[in-house]
């Protein structure tokens, strides 16, 4: 069956380009309005990934860079589903994550924060969703860290998440935050999102059912990509 177009993105739930409290956006935000484009083949198609592209260990951040032992920090499982706006699973799609270590330091040559680098922690992972859209990662909980925006800004603990979906129009990068973190409402990057419910949707919930007793605590985080039209009409076989 021919794939239909994606629903229009609801920009009211998305951060606008210009958000002066997140200062870097000021010089990096386009000022003219975007040109609205109805989908063509350029937007409804997107890159296809397979298990040849990645290794089974890539989703285990506790093991995938371990040199001399386990990473320092609280062991966590992050799991959930990639769904679309119709609540349908998005199968076989690439999910990539990156994060700071338990001390709040990134393994990046540009990060000079004074917390130590963890010799056993790389801070990145990737996986492909299964046929029902499920994914999971094993990692350590990232630490909060200060950043230069206002003098005393701290990022809440977070994991960056990159997802593809089935068409280029679904491409998304977001951040996962953790339930109960008192820094979330203070963060200028979180507050680029105008809608409180949309912020709430980025906060992973403690999931005791997925916790492994005496081993790892778990958080559940579902990611929603744009939905696509589906209703069939005889005079418009590609969908509504």
């Amino acid at each position, binding site marked *: 069956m*021919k*794939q239909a177009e994606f629903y229009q993105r*609801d*920009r009211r*739930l998305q*951060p606008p*380009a210009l*958000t002066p409290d*997140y200062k870097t*956006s*000021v*010089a*990096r*935000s386009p*000022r*003219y309005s*975007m*040109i*609205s*484009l*109805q*989908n*063509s*083949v*350029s*937007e*409804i*198609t997107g*890159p*296809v*990934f397979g298990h040849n*592209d990645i290794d089974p260990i890539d989703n285990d951040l506790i093991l*995938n860079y371990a040199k001399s032992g386990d990473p320092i920090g609280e062991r966590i499982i992050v799991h959930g589903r990639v769904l679309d*706006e119709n*609540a349908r699973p998005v199968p076989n799609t690439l999910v*990539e994550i990156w994060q700071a270590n338990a001390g709040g330091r*990134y*393994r*990046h*040559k540009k990060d000079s924060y004074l917390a130590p680098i963890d010799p056993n922690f*790389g801070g*990145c992972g*990737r996986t492909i969703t299964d046929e029902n859209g499920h994914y999971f990662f094993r990692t350590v909980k990232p630490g909060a860290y200060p950043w230069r925006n206002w003098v005393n800004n701290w990022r809440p603990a977070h994991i*960056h998440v*990159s997802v593809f979906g089935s068409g*280029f*129009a679904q*491409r*998304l*990068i*977001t951040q996962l935050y953790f339930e109960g973190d008192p820094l979330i409402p203070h963060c200028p990057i*979180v507050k*680029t*999102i105008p*809608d409180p419910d*949309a*912020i709430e949707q980025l906060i992973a919930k403690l999931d005791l059912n997925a916790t492994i007793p005496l081993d790892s605590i778990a958080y559940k985080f579902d990611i*929603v990509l*744009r*939905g696509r039209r589906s209703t069939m009409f005889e005079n418009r076989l590609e969908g509504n």
Partner: protein
Amino acid sequence: MPQKLDYLRESASQTAGPYVHIGLAPGAAGFDIYRQELGHDIAGPNAAGERIRVEGLVIDGMGSPVKDVLLEVWQANAAGIYAHPEGGGEVEEGFRGWGRVITDFETGEWGFDTVKPGAAMGRNGRLMAPHLNLWIVARGINIGLNTRVYFDDEAEANAADPVINMIEWEKRRASLIATRSMRDGKPVYRFDIRLQGDDETVFFDI
């Protein structure tokens, strides 16, 4: 009981931040972790068509190059077919049509090698001029920016392109056209992206 529209809502975007490389191009962050990083080979060895290089800068509102950008490319092959079940047909073995590049931390220059795409079928049976689709993320960019790269040696096709022609401000159409030159016998297209200013690049809400 009132009827409800039980749709989920798209997750909100957040900036990729300054350390996007750790996740998507860890070699650039300064460490080696995966057997292979993704997005280095867009066309593969078997692709038909002209081999080209595309390069440029992303320039911010102060006129400075942005040095921590990550760009992704999505394109059709030389026959105008995308490597996807809905892409219009078969592509050459190894042709992926997707690439991922980062800017140089010192200069802000980015560039990638690929094949020049062919015209793909657009809406209502109207051909689209050959183009590359770009997606741009960086620190300070709250939601990825979508634009298109067209080619200045396709003037006739560009003049008929349904997307270019949708841009009411004719002066702004030029921001989507890459400029061809030759270097060491190989075609190179220059495509600078301007985030602000009178000549701000056209970005699309797709």
